[in-house]
């Protein structure tokens, strides 16, 4: 992917908002990749967590929009536990979910009645509450 960086890219309203919602200082990241190394979903993410952090600090809102990364984040907190710079990447993922979820116009990503019947009859309540909080407005 080619990115064209211009003055002002780093401090857009997007990056400000992301920083505010996540509470994380994106610039602290030194791209060691440890967050991605321990991430249980990295293998199916289009862009792994460390690269998402990089895109975020470069203010690349367009490149981030539409990625599957933050929708495949299970909030397992491994990245938070292991980042040598003390960055809580799980909070960055949550912030991206929130920022991209609100303006979404497509149908909800998860609807209880679209789940297979045998699953719905057994799935724990906590999973529905957690999933609906992450995936629906």
């Amino acid at each position, binding site marked *: 992917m080619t990115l064209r960086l211009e003055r002002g890219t780093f401090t857009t309203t997007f990056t400000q908002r992301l920083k505010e919602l996540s509470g994380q200082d994106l610039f602290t990241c030194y791209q060691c990749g440890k967050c991605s190394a321990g991430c249980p979903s990295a293998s199916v993410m289009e862009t792994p967590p460390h690269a998402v952090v990089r895109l975020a600090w470069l203010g690349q809102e367009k490149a981030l929009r539409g990625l599957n990364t933050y929708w*495949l984040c299970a909030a397992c907190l491994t990245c938070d536990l292991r980042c040598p710079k003390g960055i809580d990447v799980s909070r960055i993922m949550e912030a991206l979910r929130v920022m991209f979820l609100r303006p979404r116009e497509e149908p909800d990503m998860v609807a209880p009645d679209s789940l297979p019947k045998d699953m719905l009859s057994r799935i724990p309540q906590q999973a529905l509450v957690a999933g609906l909080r992450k995936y629906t407005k």
Partner: protein
Amino acid sequence: MKTYYYPGCTLPDKARDFDTSARACCELLGLELEEMERWVCCGSAFKLDHKNIMQHLAPIRNLAEVHKEGGRLMTLCVFCYNSLKRANYAFLAEPDKHEVINDFIESDYDGKVPVVHLLEMLKDEVGFEALAEKVKRPLGGLRVAPFYGCLLLRPQEEIGFEDPENPTVMEKLFEALGAEVVSYPHRLECCGSYLSLKDRDHTTSMVTRVLESAVEAGANAIVTSCPMCNFNFEFFGGELVARDTIHTFYFTELLALALGADRKLCGLEQHETDVDRLIDEALAAPATAAAGSETAGSGTSGARASGDQAPDARNG
């Protein structure tokens, strides 16, 4: 300090086994509990948007409820545990917001209600040596893979009852119960959690990775403290579950069994696999560790030594 039990939304229904067996364990261990009279949902997944304390009002409301009575809150589901404990931490970190929150939820909460998990009580209050002495039915034929998952131990600075990269509490517990504890590399991985609602193929691969790792290390049982993990393991475990190669339990089910609780009170009902058969075999086998002396069914233990009759895990 009085201990109030917070069951949460799942234990009275989809995880009744967890609830029933935990109550039986506490009874047998002399841990006094009183179920909270009024409680609300803890919010399940802790909201990670930074500093928006409004997101945490539900868990804080529960803590304020316990505060009124004066006591501490004990919970079993790790989603509840994580959410309640982290919300408390967030609340304590923002003293300037206490007044407005208390006004809103009509309370005078100060952030001081301790949130504990039953595993913490077993470790710090009962102690594993004392526990081993109370074992009536050592779990000799069980090869147990403790599974910690994500939320019981992370993040360290907010939960902090065990080293999240190298915990030992469940290993010590099952050694005390006379089971063989299996060491395997995936005990701290994620089961897929709520991703199972949206990405079933990916959840299947996450679950398979964990279960295969446990089975390869020789386990015939994987033990958790989370209804989410149990569901994912059983629902997405494929052949390993269909063929009874590995069984999923709440730690309290096996603890209650080992402590000699009536089998009906050990849970053991909401399972996909034939746990009765496994347990009959386990109880008949000799204990692997120095737990309890009254070996139930010791007459047959020789013929049913650990592993002899259990389904062959590695080829399952």
